[in-house]
């Protein structure tokens, strides 16, 4: 059957891919939960994160600084978009916001093309070292990505459960009107959530950049996988996003070991299967209507 070493490196590969997916979709999921928007423009902040990492690491020589820059610029871009565009359309229905966010994504891709051109750019891997796990050589960088994704999950969990803003966000996920009725400025909550989401997407892009080449369409390339992760996990559920990110990561990675074209197909087949059984995904709430 499959070689043991291949399998282990496949699992690690899948976990790191899942980590990237998780960082990218957690923002989407939070935004859907609180504001009931499907924010496709998160994929733009992902691309921005990748490109900032590229530019900063080229200028300064430190890739981690680049990733940090990606998070910051991703968050700032999200702040600007939220203030200029989304603030005006929160009360519109879902297709409307979804199309608008797609317009932002496409326009943003145009901006990236304007600044950085069409040619894919390579970003060096910050950690070249390898470690041996059960006799298999594993790049340390992949383990670092898994670690960062784990830390972010813990951080988000603490933020949502231990801080008052986080509690307000959880309450708003259930019923925004009641939160507003208490006298809490929900628009500030929206902005905070959106910026966090943008920053995490930027982080995902920055961390992913060394593993792929950054190119203007990098956001559109992962679009389908991101969609799939949120569908399988259920829109608006953090736990579901975590589970389905790593599920999809593993399916892609192990699937490609068995039969290469399966890597892209299998997750979609699984998604259709899950939707047949549960139309709102694994952890999605049944009654998300406003």
């Amino acid at each position, binding site marked *: 059957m499959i070689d043991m070493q291949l399998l282990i490196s496949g699992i690690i590969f899948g976990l790191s891919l899942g980590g990237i997916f998780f960082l990218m979709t957690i923002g989407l999921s939070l935004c859907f939960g609180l504001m009931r928007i499907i924010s496709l423009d998160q994929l733009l902040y992902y691309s921005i994160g990748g490109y900032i990492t590229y530019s900063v690491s080229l200028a300064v020589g430190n890739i981690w600084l680049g990733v940090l820059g990606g998070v910051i610029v991703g968050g700032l871009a999200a702040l600007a978009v939220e203030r200029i565009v989304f603030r005006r359309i929160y009360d519109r229905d879902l297709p409307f916001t979804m199309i608008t966010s797609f317009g932002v994504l496409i326009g943003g891709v145009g901006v990236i093309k304007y600044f950085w051109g069409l040619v894919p750019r390579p970003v060096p891997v910050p950690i070249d070292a390898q470690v041996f796990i059960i006799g298999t050589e594993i790049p340390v960088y992949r383990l670092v990505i898994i670690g960062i994704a784990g830390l972010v999950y813990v951080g988000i969990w603490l933020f949502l459960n231990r801080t008052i803003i986080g509690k307000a966000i*959880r309450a708003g996920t*259930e019923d925004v009107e009641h939160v507003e009725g*208490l006298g809490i*400025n929900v628009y500030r909550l929206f902005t905070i959530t959106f910026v966090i989401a943008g920053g995490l997407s930027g982080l995902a892009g920055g961390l992913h950049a060394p593993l792929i080449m950054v190119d203007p369409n990098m956001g559109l390339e992962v679009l389908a996988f991101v969609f799939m992760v949120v569908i399988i996990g259920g829109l608006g559920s953090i736990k579901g996003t975590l589970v389905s990110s790593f599920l999809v990561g593993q399916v892609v990675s192990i699937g490609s070991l068995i039969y290469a074209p399966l890597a892209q197909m299998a997750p979609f087949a699984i998604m259709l299967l899950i939707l047949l059984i549960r139309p709102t995904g694994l952890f999605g709430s049944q009654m998300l209507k406003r």
Partner: protein
Amino acid sequence: MTNNDDILTVAGLNVAYGESKALFDVSMSVRASQVVACVGRNGAGKSTLLKSITGFLKPTSGSIVSNGTSLVGLAAFVIAGKGIKYIPQDKKVFSDLTVRENLELGSYASQDYDWAPVFDYFPKLKVLMDRKAGYLSGGERQMLMVGRAILGQPKLLLVDEPTEGLAPSIVMHLRDVFKELAKKTALVIVEQNLPLVCAIADKVYALKEGRIMAELTDRASIKPEACEKYL
């Protein structure tokens, strides 16, 4: 007409949901520590009136003034921040949060972290602090909703059908609480339970099909039969 001492003055209020009008030329006034009741059948526009006052619906015309400042066009959270709190009918607490977290949100919004008055009114909440609000009974939820709203000493509480579907003993408890609350804050209560209304109200507005049919201001004339004939 507008009196600056009034906690709330509504004049010529018209509200519509898209094409269908829900309120026609509604006027009302509430003074400090007055209990005002709105009675009417389902669909008479009572909840619409409360939602317009609290900023969740935008009126098409008319004025809503509180202590000399207009509330029309303000966001709901700003109005709540002015001490005008709304307790909706749906009894939806944040079910994924504990009772404590529900109260914390109320405190955060009003910057009032003293929960002693809440426990004075509803000692039962003390026992339930770490339970998820989703597991509370209907009566306990209503207690939590009222408790959450009275943090920060609101000057005006708007309560939408507080006793609907609750056990009689809890209704009695709530009635006593409202009587007690009325010493410090003005109350507008929308209610179908006429005996309860008549027991606590200083003024009654009867609504029918979006219009005010009658205004009973005389304590002596506020009787269930008197209200009944306008419905």
